[in-house]
């Protein structure tokens, strides 16, 4: 019996159209717009100005607090302007716009493909390199990795979980990384283990990627501290709390972080980025983005420089199909629909999905019939129908009592509702409002 998480979950169609396509490098664009807020926490502070010459890897914005990180130029060229640019969040954000000239890299960055396995650096030094390289969680949450690797006082990590689950339909970037950069991911895993001070790591992979499971198992055959755990295919297995439950059997308490049960979860992409940062001195300036959709001519996995406009990716995949309803940054469950293709790819862009109109257009909302399906599928054990009504009626304190802040925004509730109710939209409103109330309360005390 395959391990899985017990509560809730849904089974959307997998549509892993690009699973067989090897990662290709996307040619450099003419301009890149690199936002200074690509991570959870304080936006980075810009340290360049118009006219400055930059190379690949030049720091263009610096970490501005504990929960913040550095931003590097992903291209070589000249800074054209610092401007507000529309990004995938649906709001305009400050970004450094660079016009591309050539492809010169900063000195010290090793651009070769040679595998480097050993390092003499200790845990602190590894963590420092991770911060310097601007590494954030590449699963999509973009939490600064060096912060995740520094447990709060009183809490210790016992196990490192590497998230190779990729439960979102359509997305295959993690899958391809596991097949093509296997050795590098294993080295990255060991670096993360060293940084955390743990001697146990488990790599979780959903069972719909048998080739990746086999390959990862082969490469860890001589690593007694690292095991590969195949998992039952169920959305959202890739959620960190669901992964912890499935692999360790432990449940993260409401409102607490995974470190509370001794676990730290990192995406395989993050492990790969850590390898490149520590062993190759390469900061986070590019990532694998899946460009996909049922009508897309060439569903692909592209290695894209941060700041590249999405228009370039769509063109590389054969252009936007006629029947496209929405262009989604991310997957169909948790992604955000874009209002324009002129948004830049950021550290958190896992995929661009050109979804057909008939699949993406929502139907008319109908009254709640109290069927309870949403409660059934919620992986966090919440009552989505109730949380939606509370947001509609502005009952924020009651919403907080009913644990709205525990919602991981996976979308299983909206996916399953027979009355087409936009449950997640209202729950997100609730989370935002309650979050503000909580922060106001904390700052008063």
């Amino acid at each position, binding site marked *: 019996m395959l391990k899985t998480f017990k509560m809730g979950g849904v089974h959307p169609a997998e549509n892993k159209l690009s699973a067989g396509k090897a990662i290709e490098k996307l040619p450099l664009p003419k301009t890149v717009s690199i936002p200074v807020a690509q991570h959870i926490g304080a936006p980075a502070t810009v340290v360049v100005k118009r006219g400055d010459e930059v190379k690949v890897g030049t720091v263009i914005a610096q970490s501005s607090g504990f929960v913040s990180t550095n931003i590097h130029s992903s291209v070589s060229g000249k800074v054209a302007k610092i401007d507000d640019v*529309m990004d995938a969040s649906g709001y305009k954000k400050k970004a450094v716009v660079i016009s591309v000239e050539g492809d010169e890299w900063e000195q010290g960055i090793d651009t070769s493909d040679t595998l480097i396995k050993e390092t003499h650096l200790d845990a602190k030094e590894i963590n420092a390199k991770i911060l310097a390289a601007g590494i954030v969680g590449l699963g999509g949450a973009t939490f600064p990795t060096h912060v995740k690797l520094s447990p709060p006082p009183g809490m210790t990590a016992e196990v490192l979980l590497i998230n190779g689950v990729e439960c979102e339909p359509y997305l295959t970037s993690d899958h391809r990384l596991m097949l093509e950069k296997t050795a590098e991911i294993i080295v990255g895993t060991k670096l993360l283990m060293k940084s955390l001070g743990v001697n146990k790591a488990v790599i979780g992979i959903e069972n719909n990627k048998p080739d990746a499971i086999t390959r990862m198992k082969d490469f860890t055959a001589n690593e007694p501290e690292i095991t590969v755990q195949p998992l039952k295919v169920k959305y959202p297995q890739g959620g960190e709390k669901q992964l912890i439950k499935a692999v360790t059997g432990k449940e993260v308490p409401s409102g607490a972080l995974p470190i509370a049960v001794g676990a730290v979860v990192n995406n395989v992409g993050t492990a790969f980025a850590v390898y490149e940062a520590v062993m190759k001195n390469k900061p986070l300036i590019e990532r694998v983005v899946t460009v996909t959709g049922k009508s897309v001519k060439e569903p692909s996995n592209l290695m894209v420089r941060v700041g590249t406009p999405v228009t370039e990716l769509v063109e590389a995949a054969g252009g936007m199909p006629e029947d496209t309803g*929405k262009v989604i940054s991310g997957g169909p469950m948790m992604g955000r*629909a874009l209002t*324009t293709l002129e948004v830049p790819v950021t550290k958190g862009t896992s995929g661009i999905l050109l979804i057909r109109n008939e699949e993406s*257009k929502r139907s008319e909302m109908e009254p709640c019939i109290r069927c309870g399906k949403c409660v059934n599928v919620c992986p966090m054990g919440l009552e989505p129908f109730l949380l939606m009504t509370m947001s509609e009626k502005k009952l924020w304190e009651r919403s907080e009592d009913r644990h709205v802040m525990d919602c991981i925004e996976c979308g299983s509730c909206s996916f399953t509702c027979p009355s087409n109710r936009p449950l997640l*939209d*209202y729950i997100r409103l609730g989370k935002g409002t309650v979050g503000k109330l909580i922060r106001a309360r904390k700052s008063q005390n």
Partner: protein
Amino acid sequence: MSITLIYTVVVLSTIGIVSAIILYYVSQKFKVHEDPRIDQIEEALPSANCGGCGYAGCRAFAEACVAENELSALFCPVGGNDCMSEIAGILGLEAVQKAPKVAVLRCNGTCEHRPKTNAFDGAKSCASASSLYSGETGCAFGCLGYGDCVDVCDFDALHMNTETGLPEVDDEKCVACGACVDACPKDLFELRKKMPKDRKIYVACRNEDKGAAAKKSCEVACIGCGKCVKECPFEAITMDNNLAFIDSDKCKLCRKCVAVCPTGAIIEENFPPRKIKTEEIAEPTSAGPDSTDKA
């Protein structure tokens, strides 16, 4: 007459009388002494229970009135000055007269002026949409048009104009209770001083983007040029973050700012049309609307 019957009647009657006496004394001892003026004030109030006064209903407001020494912080927007005078009379206090106010929507981004750049497929609620992204147009500050304000108005004073995509305030019905101000996630409503003949002059824009960006999203946006600030003879206009604001307490309705505004962001309502002088070059009529039209 059997002895049982007599005993029954006597015992039950005694229990009844004793209970009645106990109940009477208990009710007297635990009686809640309420100031009779609370009832009187509640009679004088309009019983709308709208919360516009800031209290939980008319009775709560009546209790607050009795509890305070003076009425300067208390005002019922529905009852207005007449009602407050009556309440002052009941309490033997001085009535505080407040200038009546009316709600004004500070956005003129109609479908015509502010083209849509995308279609929103989420829940048609302003609060929800505002928390998700910057909206269906290029202006992240403007009215979303899903009508949260219309839903919340207790006085039937707000209606959605489906042609323009903006809500319209009925000046006759609006009591300035403030419900729409709270409901709008973009902070577009303002309670402005009510002027004679319902005349209004206000900047119908909340866009804080730089001029070029603002104008690109909406034809009648405030571009922050500052001409109105210079023109105003009463120093009623201030500029902050590329956006002008007219203080309704200082404004004397001279209309000079309306004439100089290059985009028509400043709106004048319920004025007669301007006279065009034939000997001079015609005074530029505001690019925005005048009289009662708002689109």
